[in-house]
């Protein structure tokens, strides 16, 4: 057993002093108080001259203890004898402070006025009043997210929060989007850390949006520092719903809709295609292919797009039960989500079950949050593959194994022709993910104001992928046949456990308010995988490994383990809630680095706030009703790297086949770098929270400057060393700086006006630049978009990560002499004239991202609108490669205006398959404007009036109709401008393929109807 407390606490001296200071403060203040008996107070909150108010925050003044009102506006709260005042706050209403004065029953009325500043916002390891927050935190209520339907919950964040950029990758069902908070600051994994009810994990994809109470995003160093080692990409905190005291509430939500593609593309028909192919052969001086010439079959004209793209249903059922008594509260919910893809043979299903509960007994508080989910994904990985479907190919051919048609390449006049539609139909591809995620919290008040909390969490998952391809034969083309049925299965079982011990201490001395936090956390994870392959099945109906005749194919297995231990401390201090200070320190030890040399790192941060509007000199009743200025600075870390990167290992896959069979070999195939250490990010943030017109308008604006350094990059080493071409080293520096703003306007004119509405806008502008790549690092090439190794992006100093790179198309040579004069003897009339050298062709990052949402209600009607857009980004449209310049696929009608001696005024080069002038190379020909503005969602609802409800014994009933993605403004010529990072399995994906459209699914318009009932 090794205990790392000494090393963990071996913090650089100034920081250690701060840390010890925090510990002593925590301990010291504890002595000042004795304990007393708690009691319950209860009550109801109403709108002045109006109905009951659910969701009102109630906090004991000077503490973090609080609750919210239930559907009937009722609440129950434990108070301590020394508690004196309850603070009632709710968005859109004036905050009210009520002295407790020995009462146990409260009846409170809140006046309508926008005052969001007293809301409780969840922060790491606790919560804070919004007014007291000095870091950059964005918050969104679960109720605002529900309108949009998505298989992956993280896509619901799109456009909702300033600084949080969500890129959906088409509408492949269940597709996880990329979530980037304040810009990419690494060459590795740039996705944020997710904390679900206190359990640390790496995805929120499986979360049922109906369960979400609120989502907070910690953006700057000050807010995120408490998660030190993993916070460099930002932290997303998800709080799920908990029960409220009172009657059991049953809520049923059902939604059903139809999806259709946002767009279809135009392709040539069979005769047009055959003519194009013939022209290519003529131009290349090659004999025409018989299938397009003498043996052209006019009876075949296949529209593959029509076969592959269509309408598809989506259904979403959600049922929840909640309620509780004085000491026990619960929330139980279940969801079934079923989305068929608009692309043929794709489907995503998710089952969710959640059970949250809270129990209190005396000084103990016990909370439990548990979710179990299963997602079943059946993707179509063949849609849109290059060099595939020609209109001259028949769909079906009963005489062929598998029953689908094909063409011989020589007959079709191309090198490869594959019936991808048939491949998708024949292939059975299923990815099942079971996940149990939950945690148990035990809280005990040791002394007055001093609380100990233990949090034990687990994240258990089993991922099973299954891929069966029966034997088939379309033609002799590569990939167009499969001699023997093959099956591959892989199971990964992972378990991550978290144990956290925290101590918090709250104390006020007059106008000085302190909150202290100290804690120790330990997280360990194990993932074990096992994969097997088998071929040659006696029948296609048998698709388990045991049925195969050959089972000795690609057996794989792997064990991954990691451990992370941390100590953390935080001090929040304010004077009269006017001058605010927060200091955080966290020291982490990670198993991913060489022990003990680089295991540990310390991440400090601090922030200051000034509520200017609380000053005496600040004019009351002016346009500006509230003003807070904030500033923060700190360091965050990242260890989002693979395990075991620091140790050289021998590779057992270096065997050789001798005449008598394979003999095992063991060799060194990669050099490792034992010196790898943490990536770090220093962030400076300046922000202002402004309320105008008596808080009708709330503005939060931030400027941030985020410098990420020691970024792991692959440094090239000579291949002649015999063990790889790169070694990983902390080398690069990336800067992200930007401006973000969120504006909310609330119009709720009180009782006499039935029309209420609110508008929220968010705006984010981030400038991403690589500052240095490190000594000896050559620019990183990425974004491979064809099987011919052409690439779209390059990452180099002075440019954003993964910027488009290639030749500029300067025009078309009108004569061969022109090309020769240009030093291009291989080119001739009709070929592209390119720039001499390759150059930057645009950035996949938008100049700015924005979202605008509006919610309104009039009598029993409600309406919500949500627009989202990006501006100033470019998309690399690889479809223009596939369908204009390359030879293996059907063509866009653009090729009808290809250069010919008769048609010289054009932007499309001459037709050639051999392409001696390499017109196909990476160039500006593929780059398009990717800006768009999209009406993401519009929902109109009607709630049944109270009189009807009373008769039906229903608490509430709302019917709605909703439309998603129905309106898009874009110049992009591909299927859809929302392509995100290429997620195709056949090509490079991830960070360096940002904005490269290879085979993205088209997006889906969704029109749905639904009902929300509560009993």
């Amino acid at each position, binding site marked *: 057993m*090794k205990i790392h407390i000494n090393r963990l606490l071996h913090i650089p001296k100034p920081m250690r002093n701060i840390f010890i200071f925090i510990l002593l403060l925590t301990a010291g203040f504890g002595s000042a108080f004795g304990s007393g008996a708690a009691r319950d107070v209860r009550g109801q909150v109403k709108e002045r001259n109006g109905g009951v108010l659910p969701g009102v925050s109630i906090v004991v003044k000077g503490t973090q203890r609080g609750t919210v009102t239930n559907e009937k506006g009722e609440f129950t709260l434990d108070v301590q004898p020394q508690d004196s005042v309850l603070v009632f706050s709710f968005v859109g209403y004036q905050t009210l402070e009520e002295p407790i004065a020995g009462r146990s029953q409260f009846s409170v009325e809140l006046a309508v006025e926008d005052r969001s500043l007293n809301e409780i916002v969840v922060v790491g390891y606790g919560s804070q009043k919004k007014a007291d927050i000095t870091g950059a935190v964005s918050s969104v209520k679960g109720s605002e997210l529900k309108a949009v339907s998505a298989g992956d919950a993280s896509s619901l964040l799109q456009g909702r929060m300033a600084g949080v950029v969500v890129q959906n990758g088409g509408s492949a069902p269940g597709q996880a989007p990329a979530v980037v908070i304040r810009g990419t600051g690494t060459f590795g994994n740039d996705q944020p850390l997710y904390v679900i009810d206190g359990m640390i994990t790496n995805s929120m994809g499986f979360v049922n949006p109906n369960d979400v109470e609120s989502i907070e995003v910690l953006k700057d160093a000050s807010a995120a520092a408490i998660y030190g080692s993993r916070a460099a990409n930002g932290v997303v905190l998800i709080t799920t719903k908990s029960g409220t005291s009172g009657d059991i509430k049953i809520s049923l939500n059902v939604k059903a809709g139809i999806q259709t593609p946002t767009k279809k593309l135009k392709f040539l028909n069979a005769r047009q295609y055959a003519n194009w192919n013939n022209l290519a052969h003529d131009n290349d001086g090659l*004999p025409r292919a018989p299938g397009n010439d003498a043996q052209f079959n006019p009876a075949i004209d296949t529209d593959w797009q029509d076969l592959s793209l269509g309408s598809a249903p989506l259904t979403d059922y959600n049922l929840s039960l909640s309620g509780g008594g004085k000491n026990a509260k619960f929330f139980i919910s279940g969801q079934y989500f079923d989305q068929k893809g608009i692309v043929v043979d794709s489907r995503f299903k998710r089952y969710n079950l959640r059970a949250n509960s809270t129990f209190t007994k005396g000084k103990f508080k016990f909370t439990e949050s548990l979710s179990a989910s299963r997602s079943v994904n059946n993707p179509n990985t063949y849609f849109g593959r290059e060099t595939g479907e020609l209109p001259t190919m028949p769909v079906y051919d009963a005489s062929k194994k598998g029953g689908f048609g094909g063409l011989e390449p020589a007959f079709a006049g191309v090198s490869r022709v594959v019936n991808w539609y048939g491949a998708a139909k024949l292939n059975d591809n299923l990815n099942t993910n079971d996940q149990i995620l939950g945690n148990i919290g035990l809280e005990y008040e040791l002394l007055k104001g001093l609380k100990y909390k233990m949090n034990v969490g687990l994240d258990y998952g089993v991922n099973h992928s299954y891929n069966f391809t029966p034997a088939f034969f379309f033609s002799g083309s590569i990939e167009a046949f499969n001699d023997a049925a093959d099956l591959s299965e892989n199971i990964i079982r992972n378990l991550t456990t978290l144990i956290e011990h925290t101590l918090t201490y709250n104390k006020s001395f007059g106008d000085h308010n302190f909150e202290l936090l100290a804690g120790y956390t330990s997280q360990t994870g194990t993932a074990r995988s096992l994969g097997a392959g088998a071929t040659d099945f006696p029948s296609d109906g048998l698709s388990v490994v045991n049925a195969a005749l050959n089972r000795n194919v690609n057996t794989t297995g792997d064990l991954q383990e990691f451990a992370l231990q941390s100590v953390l401390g935080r001090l929040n201090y304010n004077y009269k809630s006017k001058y605010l200070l927060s200091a955080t320190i966290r020291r982490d030890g990670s198993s991913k680095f060489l022990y003990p040399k680089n295991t540990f790192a310390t991440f400090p941060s601090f922030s200051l706030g000034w509520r200017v509007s609380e000053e005496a000199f600040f004019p009351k009743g002016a346009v500006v009703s509230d003003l807070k200025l904030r500033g923060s600075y700190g360091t965050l870390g990242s260890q989002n790297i693979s395990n075991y990167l620091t140790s050289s290992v021998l590779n057992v896959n270096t065997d050789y086949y001798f005449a008598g069979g394979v003999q095992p070999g063991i060799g060194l195939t990669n050099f490792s770098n034992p010196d790898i250490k943490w990536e770090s990010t220093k962030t400076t943030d300046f922000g202002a929270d402004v309320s105008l017109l008596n808080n009708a308008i709330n503005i939060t604006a931030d400027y941030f400057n985020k410098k990420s350094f020691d970024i792991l990059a692959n440094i090239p080493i000579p291949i002649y060393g015999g063990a790889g071409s790169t070694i990983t080293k902390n080398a690069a520096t990336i800067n992200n700086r930007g401006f973000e703003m969120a504006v909310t306007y609330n119009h709720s004119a009180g009782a006499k006006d039935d029309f209420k509405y609110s508008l929220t806008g968010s705006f984010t502008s981030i400038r991403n630049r690589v500052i240095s790549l490190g000594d000896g690092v050559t620019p990183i090439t990425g974004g491979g978009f064809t099987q011919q190794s052409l690439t779209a992006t390059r990452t180099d100093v002075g440019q954003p990560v993964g910027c488009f790179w290639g030749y500029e198309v300067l025009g078309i040579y009108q004569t061969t002499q022109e090309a020769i004069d240009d030093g291009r003897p291989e080119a001739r009339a009709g070929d592209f004239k390119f720039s001499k050298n390759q150059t930057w062709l645009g950035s996949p990052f938008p100049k700015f991202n924005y979202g605008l949402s509006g919610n309104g209600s009039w009598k029993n009607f409600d309406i919500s609108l949500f627009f989202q857009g990006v501006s100033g980004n470019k998309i690399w449209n690889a479809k223009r490669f596939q369908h204009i310049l390359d030879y293996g696929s059907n063509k866009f009608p653009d090729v009808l205006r290809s250069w010919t001696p008769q048609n010289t005024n054009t932007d499309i080069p001459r037709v050639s398959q051999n392409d001696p002038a390499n017109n196909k190379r990476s160039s500006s020909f593929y780059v398009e404007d990717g800006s768009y503005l999209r009406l993401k969602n519009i929902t109109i609802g009607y709630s049944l009036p109270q009189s009807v409800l009373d008769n039906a014994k229903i608490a509430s009933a709302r019917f709605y109709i909703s439309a998603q993605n129905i309106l898009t403004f874009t110049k992009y010529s591909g299927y859809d401008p929302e392509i995100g990072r290429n997620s195709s399995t056949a090509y490079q994906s991830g960070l360096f393929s940002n904005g490269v459209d290879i085979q993205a699914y088209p997006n889906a318009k969704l029109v749905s109807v639904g009902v929300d009932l509560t009993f």
Partner: protein
Amino acid sequence: MNPVSLFMILVLVMVNCNKKDLDLTNPNNLSVQSFWKTADDAEKGLVACYGPLTTIQGWGRMLGALLTIQRGDDVNPFPFPAVNDPGTFSTVSSDGRVNEGWTELNAIVARANSVLFYVPDISMDDTRKKQILGEASFLRALAHFYLLNMWGNIPLITKPIESLDDLFIEQAPQADVWASIINDAKNAQAALPETVDPKDIGRATWGAATALLGKALLFNKDWTGAAAEFKKIVDKPNLYKLVTNYQDNFLASGNNNSESVWELQYQSTPNGNWGTSGTANPLRGQGWESDVAPVGYTSQGSVSVNKWVYDLFMKQKTKDGKIDPRAYATIIWNYPGAKVYQDDFAKVMTGANLNNFWVRKYLNFDRESASVPGSWGYPNNNRRMIRLADVLLMYAEAINEASGPNAQAYAAINAVRARAGMPDIPAGLGQAAFRTAVRDERVLELSLEGDRVFDLLRWGNMAATFKAHPEYRSNSGAVFVEGKHEYLPIPVNDIGANPKLKQNNGY
């Protein structure tokens, strides 16, 4: 209780609860420190030296065809960007295929360096230890031989890399690399047995080492030395003899026949993975078939055969007045009954394709095309790296260059011709005429086997040949640049990573 003590105790308790170690080792692989201890380690370390030979990046495809066969003047590659570039003289230093061949050959060197460094200290059976060191010496000599003759100027590393600084060195003079090759080959020759167990066929033998040593001396114009080495093989008629049917050398059914001195053992791996040695379950078949198969029977750019090869075959008939049977085993053209795979050549080929010449050698006509069935890893038609006919012709050449043709030289070339039913070459030729006879015979016997580019290199007539005959690259219009295209570019990764390296001329 004093709250300060309470707090401190609690913090200590919290921390001590945790037992999980932060010092985790990789449970998936052996660590370097624990290896090279036993006889079994020595065997496995040695097998790893063979591993790169037959991957797709090795002689499975890239070294097998794109970087060797396609660069000869016997073939005429079609333009196929990012694949056929070395053969169409359009390769650049970032060419992935060039990089892949370089990677696999250097992997052999690095792994052999480890065997030669660590195995001497392992306590094990001395006989087997000697053989292991011999095999590793042979493989290092072989890898250096191809590196030197393909890239011209290479760094010479003969010890395991202990620190990254060991990597950042300058290129070695060619003479130093040759000295290392010859030394390694001699060591191998002295250590290796004449034959191996049937299950071990494919391992280096005395014959393989002797032939490689002779070839290295031949390339260095040490004619007497080369002839002496080749003679050792020629003088062992019970060890190696020419097979009766010439074509058996290029069919899977003739794998490891009596003519074969050393061949790569392909394994049919239709479900293999694309990757270098170190990839789990790699493709280990004769993947390069697609890079030479006739148009329409391959997914790749491929090649046609230059007419001069056909013309040379037609120049002289067999003793009974027929076309040299080696022509049918080497190329396809429009002759009565000609087949291309399972189809009738005259029926399926149209237009210019019908009148062109195509590769036959090493194609597997039991398939429907170069990709059906089974695609890349399917065929297991071994690559004969050195066969007796080649040794005989090199022997004849070495003798002739040393001192003009003698009886042994005549016997050697005529033995090769006799097997094909061809009449003896005329007696009494002068040195120059005999040289021409041997060189022509090498075309008739050995074309499309990947050695042509090295023959042109050592004869010093590569540039002149391509300059005189632009039609040898008519399919691509490629132009050979003298002083450049004799060698491949040093991969850009290495040039970038090590500033001490000099790029080859012209790249």
